[in-house]
């Protein structure tokens, strides 16, 4: 049985802008039908990476290959790729449907098909009655919906979405979340970058952490948790202001952090036995409240890429 080639494969790609190395030897392969999320701080090189993935920038070194339409090539086919850029703009004086049909036609779609698809998506996103209105008359949220539609209206095999959730309210974030899942379920491979960790955690099949232009971690969220040894976090509220230094000596405790005067966060190792730990805590502390929570993607992200300063000059082409 033959294995389908990656939809997108970057091999040791590098890109410099003057003295700044924006992307430094990143390798990744996007498998058909998956949702891959790129995470990293501002200036980490995500947008540059995506622009190289789209063929808008050529890497100084390394290769970019595409496996779209059953053909492996090093030339991107814009009719099979959709792109939602981070820097988004609209032709403000153009009606909504005309705008969508124009971009669909640019990406090789026949105009009747483009009109039909545009109307379908506008209906789906509750904008059918605004199809003839100029874009400038739409609210910011609705403009973002139109921009999202324009990136996928031509039914791409690969959708590259740069910060798709930025600027959206929680309801629209949930809407976009379900739309991206629908895309994936319909066979579109999705690569996205985002800062909303809780959304990425719910959405992404795989995550790649980018730090200073390099890959700092990659895998499913579960794999990242395992790799970082992250287990459970105990959140205690205690009476008084007791000395909690003894907690770090207990078996299975990775770290202890005091939050205010009466709260303590204890991170325990994965698979650590809880009963003896709780018993030891109960002997020394007067616990008033106890909660547990799993270490989140946000925690892994902060631990992985935290403290890294934004490389100067990356915004030059970002």
């Amino acid at each position, binding site marked *: 049985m033959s294995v389908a080639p990656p939809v997108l494969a970057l091999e040791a790609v590098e890109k410099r802008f*003057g003295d700044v190395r924006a992307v430094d030897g990143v390798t990744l392969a996007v498998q058909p039908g998956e949702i891959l999320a790129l995470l990293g701080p501002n200036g980490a090189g995500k947008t540059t990476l995506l*622009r190289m993935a*789209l063929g*808008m*920038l*050529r*890497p*100084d070194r390394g290769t970019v290959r595409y496996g779209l339409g059953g053909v492996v090539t090093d030339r991107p086919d*814009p009719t099979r*790729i959709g*792109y939602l*850029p981070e*820097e*988004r*703009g*609209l*032709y*403000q004086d153009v009606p909504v449907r005309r705008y969508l049909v124009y*971009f669909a036609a*640019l*990406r090789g779609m026949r105009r009747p098909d483009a009109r039909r698809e545009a109307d379908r998506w506008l209906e789906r996103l509750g904008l059918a009655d605004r199809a003839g209105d100029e874009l400038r008359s739409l609210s910011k949220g609705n403009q973002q919906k139109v*921009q999202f539609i*324009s*990136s996928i209206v031509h039914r791409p095999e690969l959708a590259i979405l740069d910060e798709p959730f930025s600027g959206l309210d929680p309801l629209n974030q949930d809407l976009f979340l379900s739309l991206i899942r629908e895309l994936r379920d319909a066979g579109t491979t999705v690569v996205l970058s985002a800062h909303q960790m809780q959304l990425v955690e719910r959405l992404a099949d795989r995550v790649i952490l980018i730090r200073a232009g390099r890959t700092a971690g990659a895998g499913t969220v579960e794999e990242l948790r395992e790799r970082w040894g992250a287990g459970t976090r105990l959140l205690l509220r205690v009476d008084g202001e007791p000395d909690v230094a003894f907690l770090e000596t207990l078996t299975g405790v990775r770290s202890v952090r005091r939050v205010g005067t009466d709260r303590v966060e204890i991170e325990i190792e994965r698979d650590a036995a809880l009963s003896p730990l709780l018993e030891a805590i109960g002997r020394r502390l007067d616990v008033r409240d106890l909660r547990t929570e799993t270490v989140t993607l946000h925690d892994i992200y902060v631990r992985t890429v935290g403290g890294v300063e934004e490389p100067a000059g990356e*915004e*030059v*082409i970002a």
Partner: protein
Amino acid sequence: MMLGGAFIARLGDDDDDDRGITLAVIGAETLDLPAELGRFRIERHSEWALGRLRREVRERGRNAVLVLHDSGTGELIARQAPSWSNELMRELTARAMQIRLEASGLDPQRLAEIQAPFALTVHEAAPRAGRGERIAAFVALSLTLMGLFTGLSYIFVSVTGEKQNRLAEQVISAIPPQAWIDGKIVGLSGVSIVGILNLILSGLVFLGVSRLLWGWSIPLPTSIERPDLLLAALGLIFLGFLFWFTFITAVAAIIDDPQNSNRNQLLFLPMVAMVPAFLAVSDPNAAWIRTLSILPPTSAGVLPARLLVTDVPWWEAMLSTALLIGAILVLRRLAGRVFRLGMLMYGKEPSWAEVRRWMREAG
């Protein structure tokens, strides 16, 4: 505008050369002057009218007054010494000689032989354009300038607007930047040419109607009978649009804020390059004009001007066209590279050193 005004004034300088001149003559019987002497129309007056005639000359009511004396001398009274005084003197000398010869009793045949002029045929190697050619060239260049300015404005607003509205990435992800820039340039060059043709057509209709209704007429250039010349001039103007629109597209792509960027001044460069084209109308065969009509980018304006007012050697036209096309192809390539990266740069303008690096680098 100043250039245009100066040019029109210059066109007007030659008016007396082409028109007849009316002379009020006192003592015309002295030389038995006919009603027309060369291009001078003779009005006979008595010496009593001299005072009135002097006043009319002073007040621009007439060209001049000629007073002929029995002694074989004369006086010419004009506001200033006219450019045609030598011509008048030649005519009067010839007339006086004829009268003396007739008085000498020679038979008419012998007299005709003596007076027969020497047969001299003049062939102009670089004939000066007629008034019609010069007016047509001036109008064509003015329309070109108008089309150029309109097209440059469209391109500038279009590119800086798309960049400011953050549309560049969406478009570049859908079509190659070179296709985008090519489409803009060819499209707007075509729009500008169609605009010029519209104005020419409207002008011709206006002239036709004026002629029918009011009998107005202006001298038409002989080149109007040479559609090949007109097409060649139009083709060169189109190439010129392609060159300058390509240039300005690249410039617009490296401007971040069109309101405040000092790179806006580069918009005037194409206008400056058109100045020699206007000068070429008056002196189309000067060495420096010929040189500028071969070298791009001035050739796009100077060569069409020369084609309309003088005979241009075929090799000069071919060389000029080939160089212009070559320059457009090179500029297109460089502009495409600058455009591709410039359109993605937000928040600052690239330095000229960066722009040079983009032009050198393929990626």
